[in-house]
């Protein structure tokens, strides 16, 4: 990391964001005048400078009870406690899916009850574990469908000048395929962003990574590139996903991609195990591999600052 020198002028935005990949936990990167500055999360400087921040939780898998974590309810509550301890209260919360483990009513009930203790309004998208009810997604829509949601539950909203888009890529999956959006959803997306100026910051969130992380394990979206092409013209696009239970990030042009940790159990790195199933780690290490994410928006032509923290410490 010899190039990592925040004193040096003219550090490219791309390089600064690449540094974020190695930032680990508790470090906030913000941009001011094109020069990255880092502050420890406890200082709250970034949060004060931010116009607003929001929380991302993912993959709570309530209902799971296997060795990798017999009590995901406890770890979700710990994540909620960490969120409550953030220096500045997030404006709202986004859950990027696999809210439940088996789409059972009680699981949906339990999660809703726990998340209500955050005092935050929640925006949701389903994971594949949320749509395995008899109605193939009806249970999810009964809970989280609104008059704004379309189809299987996609929608958009605006907050603080940022346009948020929630996409559903876990239904109508094809044999041998990856995540899938479908033509109806893509047509909706095209219309949704058509008249927005390119200076509008975009945050798009979906359960399965919209970009190809590791296709051998299904970590990608068959027609994700079509969605990203519709967003390419915007000056700042942040893509938030879950599903893989670990952080993977990349920056491509004006797009920043980030996948979140789970609050339930870790999964192995790409190809590091026989399959992407729940990964058992020593009990003392579990919480280092679970976590939550804060995203801060600083008004101006700047990327959003994405900060991960684990449940450890």
């Amino acid at each position, binding site marked *: 990391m010899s190039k990592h020198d925040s004193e040096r002028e003219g550090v490219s935005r791309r390089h600064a964001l690449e540094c974020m990949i190695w930032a680990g936990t508790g470090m906030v990167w913000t941009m001011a005048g094109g020069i990255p500055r880092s502050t420890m999360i406890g200082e709250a400087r970034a949060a004060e400078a931010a116009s607003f921040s929001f929380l991302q939780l993912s993959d709570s898998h309530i209902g799971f009870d*296997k*060795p*990798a974590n017999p009590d995901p309810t406890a770890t979700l509550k710990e994540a909620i406690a960490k969120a409550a301890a953030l220096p500045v209260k997030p404006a709202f919360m986004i859950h990027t899916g696999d809210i439940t*483990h*088996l*789409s059972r009513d009680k699981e949906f009930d339990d999660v809703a009850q726990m998340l209500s203790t955050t005092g935050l309004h929640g925006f949701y998208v389903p994971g*594949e*574990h949320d749509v*395995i009810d*008899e109605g193939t997604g009806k249970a999810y829509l009964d809970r989280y469908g609104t008059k704004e949601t379309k189809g299987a539950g996609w929608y958009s909203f605006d907050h603080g000048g940022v346009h948020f888009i929630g996409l559903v890529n876990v239904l109508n*999956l*094809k*044999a*041998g*395929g*990856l995540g899938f959006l479908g033509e109806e959803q893509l047509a909706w997306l095209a219309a949704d962003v058509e008249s927005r100026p390119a200076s509008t910051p975009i945050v798009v969130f979906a359960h399965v990574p919209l970009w190809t992380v590791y*296709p*051998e*394990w*299904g970590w990608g979206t068959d027609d994700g590139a079509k969605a990203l092409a519709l967003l390419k013209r915007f000056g700042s696009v942040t893509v938030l996903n879950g599903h893989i239970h670990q952080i993977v990030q990349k920056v491509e042009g004006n797009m920043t991609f980030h996948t979140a940790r789970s609050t339930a159990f870790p999964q192995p790195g790409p190809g590091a195990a*026989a*399959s*992407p*199933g*729940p990964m058992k780690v020593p009990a003392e290490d579990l919480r280092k591999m679970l976590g939550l994410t804060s995203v801060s928006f600083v008004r101006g032509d700047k990327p959003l600052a994405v900060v991960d923290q684990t449940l450890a410490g």
Partner: protein
Amino acid sequence: MTGRFRGTARRASRRVIGAALLLVAVFAGVSWAQTPAANSAIVNIDNFAFTPAVLVVHLGTTVTWTNRDDIPHTVTEKKLTFRSKAIDSGEQFSRTFDLPGEIEYFCSLHPHMTGKIVVEP
């Protein structure tokens, strides 16, 4: 014989017969356990894979999928002509195949998991 003795004799003979039947059943059971019945077959779901990936069976065979993963899976026919409920860890799903042909299926949660049943007449 008095009635009581007759009853005892009957019970005793029933017990002998019962024991004999039990022995027959035990021996039969032992031989049955060593080879599955001709009209049933097994697919294991393990490490996000259907094993065997291609299973050849005869008409009328009941195939049972057993999930040995710590994650639920489903068995979903490629064109959605049938789909199982979510098969959680340790659970099973069975289907009897009454028509010859090739049935391609996948897991609707993890679609990169695919398999095929070849039903021969």
